């Protein structure tokens, strides 16, 4: 080996590293801009409320002095720019103000409620991934080369139906089946493992259906590829062919969809929590919207929005790691 080709190789490597860190930088910048937009949007939320938000929250019978007092407490009497600066500063310090209806610290309420929601959504997401991906790969392996038409038909019909039913209707059906008809699982509340089963199932079933369909179609596409023949030509065991060679190539579309599903899961928790009386952010959100408790609504918009943005960010980064080509295509 001479010195010249070696340095060329090193240069190429350097370029590869550079595109990747450039991608990371670009993507992080986008996340920060998105977060700034989110904060700005949530700030203006309360100002977009038609009429007087404090009056609307306290009701027409509240004395004018109380309304003025609350306004001052919320800082709504200050100039808009001051309010904006204060808001951003407070949010960055984790201070979301006090609830208009209960007078509690919104940050405390969120701290109290968030774990239940994130646990529910997180478990549902993991369950969805861990069921859907192997299921999709298995179905692709079973139905490759147009084999087992019956299995294929059954699978596509079942998942097609499941994916079409929204989570809250599924939840109602699950409650009816498992809690009312056969009393296996509790109908509502959060106490122990069994109370998780139905909400998690309600949240995860539709994503499982959608995701496993994608994984199967992608798996079939990948199993047709030349590099799978190469892998077989190397006489690798079937396990390695499927897991190491086929699976990563199905991950790009799978992860992209999973990112969307994660966002959908967060929204799904709002409905599912209300069905199962789950003491999480979803129930808090509905309550605070109904009661016009604007500081709480505002804080929840920040929390939910951040979760969605971070989920998308995480998926993009994961894609960049798993499928390095995406970092190039991106630019």
């Amino acid at each position, binding site marked *: 080996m*001479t010195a010249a*080709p*070696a340095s*060329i*190789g090193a240069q*190429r*490597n350097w370029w*590869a590293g550079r595109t990747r860190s450039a991608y990371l930088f670009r993507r992080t910048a986008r996340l920060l801009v998105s977060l700034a*937009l989110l904060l700005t949007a949530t700030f203006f*939320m309360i100002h977009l409320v*038609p009429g007087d938000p404090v009056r*609307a929250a306290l009701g027409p019978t509240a004395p004018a002095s109380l309304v003025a007092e609350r306004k001052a407490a919320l800082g709504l009497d200050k100039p808009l720019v001051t309010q904006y600066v204060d808001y951003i500063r407070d949010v960055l310090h984790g201070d979301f103000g006090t609830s208009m209806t209960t007078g509690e610290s919104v940050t405390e309420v969120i701290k109290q409620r968030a774990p239940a929601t994130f646990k529910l959504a997180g478990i549902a997401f993991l369950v969805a991934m861990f069921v859907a991906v192997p299921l999709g790969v298995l179905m692709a392996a079973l139905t*490759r*080369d*147009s084999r087992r038409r019956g299995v294929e038909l059954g699978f596509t019909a079942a998942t097609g139906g499941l994916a*079409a*039913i*929204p989570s*809250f*209707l599924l939840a*109602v*059906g699950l*409650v*009816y089946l498992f809690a009312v*008809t056969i009393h296996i699982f509790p*109908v509502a509340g959060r106490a122990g493992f069994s109370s998780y089963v139905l909400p998690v199932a309600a949240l995860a079933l539709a994503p499982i259906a959608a995701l496993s369909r994608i994984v199967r*179609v992608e798996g079939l*596409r990948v*199993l*047709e590829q*030349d*590099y799978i*023949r*190469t*892998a*077989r030509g*190397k*006489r*690798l*065991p079937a396990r*390695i062919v499927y897991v190491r*060679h086929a699976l*990563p190539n199905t*991950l790009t579309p799978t992860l992209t969809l999973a990112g969307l599903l994660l966002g959908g899961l*967060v*929204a*799904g928790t*709002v*409905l599912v929590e*209300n*069905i199962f009386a789950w003491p999480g952010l979803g129930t808090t959100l*509905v309550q605070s*919207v*109904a009661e*016009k408790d604007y500081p709480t609504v505002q804080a929840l*918009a920040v929390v939910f*929005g951040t979760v*969605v943005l971070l989920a998308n960010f995480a998926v993009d980064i994961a894609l960049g790691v798993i499928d*390095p*080509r995406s970092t190039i295509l991106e630019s």
Partner: protein
Amino acid sequence: MSEPSTSRFRQALRTPVGITASIGLAAIIVLAIIAPILWSDDAAKLDILAASQGASRAHPLGTDALGRDILYRMLVATRLSVTLALLAAGLGALIGIPLGAIPALVGGRIGKLVTGFINLSVAFPTLLVAIFVAAIIGVGARGAVAGIGIAIAPYFARLSQTLSASVAGSDYLAAARMLGVRRVRLLRRHILPNVAEPLLITVTIAVGDSLLALAGLSFLGLGVQPPQYDWGRMLSEGLSRIYVTPVVALGPAIAITLGALSFVLFGEVLAKAAAGGGAPRWTRTDLSALPVLPAGPPTGDGDAIPVPDVLAVENLTVSFPGGSVPVRGVSLEVAPGEIIGIVGESGSGKTLTAMAIADLLPAASQLTASRFTLFGKDPRSLGEAERRRLLGRSLAVVYQDPMSALNPALRVGRQLAEVSEVHDGLSKSSATQRAVDRLGSVRIANPAARVRQYPHEFSGGMRQRAVIAMGLMSEPKLIIADEPTTALDVTVQQQILQLLREVSTSGGSAAILISHDVAVVSQLCRRVLVMYAGRIVEELDVATLVIGPAHPYTAALVASVPTMESDRTQPLASIPGRAPSPYDDSPGCPFAPRCPRASARCTDLMPPLEQRSAGHRVACWHPLQRGAAGTPAGVAVEDVAV
């Protein structure tokens, strides 16, 4: 919409799914119109005595807390549910479509900003956005419609963005502008027809989605407020009673599902028709399935004799269901260290022959052979694990297209190292070390850095080197190279051929080189098999190939290779006619229809592959005589190109 697309839609709506969706949609629209007229009074009739009942003859779906009949209320609620969904979808389209058109109209920095904003807002789930918008506007039907409209607007924007970009960049628009078509006419005649179809489909699906989202909002108590009621509201009222009278909740749940599904299905049926209808999702290509070797007929007495050859096959036949027989009775032997070539046109069965030997045939195919010995064993008689070990360590395959033969998601080093990990039980690090070594031996510069790279960072020639290095991870006794240079450019071709020669001489491995190119094969091999229509028609050494082949087909192949002496004012020699299809079952010589020497005997009877001289076999009733006239190439051209 043009005539053909209308008929396409009509056809799509006649499929079972299309009929179901149409009936569902029609039923919902009819209900939305007539139900409030017919049953408003029944739905509002209070009957305190029958309050909160389950299903009964008088009330099939039970009654609510005030004793009103739920079935009637459900039917009447169709209008409000559907109307609100239509309004929300309409609002979404109204906001989203102009927004999405901005990038195409304005372009530049503002266009980019709008695009970024659309991409950002699509990420947020509809229901969440709707809830927050409803929180601003105020809880109620108005807030819910506005919320959902705004929440789905990004989807419309995304669609209109792509549509406007494609229309703006289209040739027909440029042509119409050049012709001075006026703006209104431009919009009506040229732009609208092209965007109407996808927009209509999206609106239909959006109505279904809005229906669901509205039901969700009402269900949460953030949508329609009493005394008004829609399906979502009824569902939430029913859920509180699901323990006592579950039917009360299930009725509205089913109404929501069916309602939304009808719209979404209808839209999807239209979309599928627009996209080209019943075309299969993916088309099958060959050579992809698991290597399953169906057992052939018993191997006979060939097993008893010790076989020194690396490979010996007799009467190898590959067939596919449906009567296609692309490989017909091929027999060949490869001695240790020998490089043989297989030439033939595409479709001659040479690749399938190679894949049959390599145990990489497509799953649907059927392999038979009266004898099949590879490294002294019949692969068909081995168990899965044993066969894998035998082939994995002793057989290397180099594929036609290096661009697709390497796995794009794995580092090159990983793809090499795993061979030694699996078959030689090497540790990860020593396998990687061997991969570095082998990459170096195929003259890839800086292999230690290269093993960490992905295939897309390699050039085509380098990838083919990497594939060859992959084959060298064990010490192969046989290398099968299937058109290894076809996908590469000429200068690289030479290097790869040179490399293959080196690899086989230094490692002492035998090789089968498959090519359509006589020139390539004659550079590397001493012995050449010529295949035509799934059969070996001639087997000869390279010297004979040059001096004078006996089979007219071989002669024609040789003649088609341009040399330095070729007359460049003449068109390149080619063989007139076409090879028979693998379904063809005629008894005669398959080359007879294209052969100038063919006689009646040729069309009636397949000539056997017969020994002509040492190392020269030919299947021809009328073989060419060596040195019959002038240069051999000249003979061939005169003989064949009529």
